[in-house]
């Protein structure tokens, strides 16, 4: 305890407060999330920790409810199509911008990053207004277009960063040996940047699945997303079914996080 802790010879004891404060902050960050998991198995309406009686009633309520099942299906569909649309568009854009390196490319990069810079409420009401004109409100197509726009910056940034560590000369070698540009890209470059592309796809998926504000405006009725239902339900009362849904979402998040770490590790070792 009285041994030096750092280069400046401060002892562990003297900075005990630092360890306690840091531990508290970490607990503050992680505990509320994980406490939801056992609470979702409470039998009572006012969720308890630890639950006095364990039961799956809230899970049964979730899986048994047509509205929740429909909403889940809509969200998954939207996320899937978002990945399908955002990943190629973003990858190709990142590739072109990376090779270009001109000032215009820099401007285009900034333009593609605007979904990250403009407040999302403004984007949401803008889209709502636009979709009202074309009848795209409350449609899957509209939802996918909106979510793809929001996901694009993540794909572009992720694939761009992957391209930075990739030696583009390999493509030039392939082309000098006679391959067309497209063939060189598909057979030489694409396999080597695939991990960044998977990461980008992962971010696109999560962006769409977790998106709340835009969905509030443009996904209604039969095309309501799970985020919209959760938000409206939480605004009115605290439905314990949401604890079950949250547990499922937490499990999904942790899984996707581990997946991203795996992709990162394989990228570094390749």
């Amino acid at each position, binding site marked *: 305890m009285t041994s030096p802790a750092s280069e400046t010879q401060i002892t562990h004891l003297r900075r005990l407060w630092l360890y306690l404060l840091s531990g508290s902050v970490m607990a503050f960050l992680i505990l509320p999330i994980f406490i939801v998991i056992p609470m979702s198995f409470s039998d009572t309406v006012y969720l308890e920790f630890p639950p006095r009686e364990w039961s799956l009633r809230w899970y049964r309520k979730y899986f048994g409810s047509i509205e929740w099942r429909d909403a889940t299906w809509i969200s998954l569909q939207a996320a899937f199509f978002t990945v399908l649309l955002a990943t190629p568009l973003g990858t190709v854009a990142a590739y072109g911008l990376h090779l270009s390196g001109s000032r215009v490319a820099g401007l285009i990069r900034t333009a593609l990053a605007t979904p990250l810079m403009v407040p999302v409420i403004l984007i949401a009401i803008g889209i709502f207004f636009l979709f009202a004109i074309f009848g795209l409100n409350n449609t899957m197509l509209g939802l996918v277009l909106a979510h793809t726009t929001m996901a694009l910056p993540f794909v572009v940034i992720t694939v761009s960063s992957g391209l930075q560590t990739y030696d583009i000369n390999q493509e030039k070698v392939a082309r000098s040996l006679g391959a067309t540009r497209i063939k060189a890209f598909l057979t030489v470059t694409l396999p080597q940047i695939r991990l960044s592309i998977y990461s980008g796809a992962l971010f696109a998926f999560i962006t769409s699945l977790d998106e709340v504000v835009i969905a509030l405006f443009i996904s209604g009725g039969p095309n309501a997303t799970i985020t919209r239902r959760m938000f409206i339900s*939480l605004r009115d009362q605290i439905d314990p079914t949401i604890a079950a849904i949250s547990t499922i979402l937490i499990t999904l998040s942790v899984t996707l996080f581990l997946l991203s770490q795996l992709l990162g590790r394989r990228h570094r070792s390749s």
Partner: protein
Amino acid sequence: MRSPRTNGKEYPHRDRGGVNAEVLVAADRRERAFLLGLSGGALLLVTVILVLPVGWLFYLSFVTEDQFSFDHYLRLTESRSYFLTFQTTFEISFAVTAICLLLGYPLSYLLSQLSARAAAIWLIFVIIPFWTSLLVRTYAWLVLLQRRGLINTWLVESGVIDEPLRLVHNFTGTVIGMTHIMLPFLILPLYASMRTIDRDLMRAAANLGASPVKAFWQVFFPLSLPGLFAGIVLVFVLCLGFYVTPALLGGGRIIMWSMQIERTVTLYADWGAASALGMVLLVVTLAMLALLSRLFNLERLFRSSS
């Protein structure tokens, strides 16, 4: 992507002349156009879905009854309810940013002093919340802070208080929830920036006789300021435009800027007013982000958190 031989010139072939110069320049131009054109799909989508609607809203904010006017903007400065909204938004943003700063700086400091491997493990405590859905985290606080929630139940049962505290559907609950969301946004860039501070500097200070506390305040802290300011600006900007958490944890009593915009559209259908509110928020946000980009490279932030 210019090879060293071109000496940074855009069209080297043109300068060197020769029979093929024109053809090569044209090929060069076509190549560049093609490469930029690859972003066409993405650019088209972003323009149609985002830029055009926001541009239209910009136009709407200057229109009252089919005439150009500053009415909507003037009303922002005159109306009492708008003033309250601005006040609430800034109060909450300042409060959340200050708390994140006090809680996040020590943790970032400690993590930056550990070995990279150890830090990576402890950072999971920061990154997993970052990856968890916003709604789930907000819900967790709703459940914990409510009258018959966990915190109140424990406090009452252990005799610390007699009556449950009103921790949610008010300012307090909103601040707690938003702090939880915003902390990773402060910790991650700050941690990354602190990691780049040379350890030898602190050793040198110790060698020269500085006490640990003095060495920290005179050497480490000033070097950590750019990363700190970047984190503060980022958190503040995110707080300004935040919608979900204040809407749920504020119980209708906390009206933030984004909520005002939403109400103006859904309850009053006053697009002009909503657009004016939105444009002011946009300008303030962009100004702060421009400041942020001076302090810290956003792309580096993104890579270090994934």
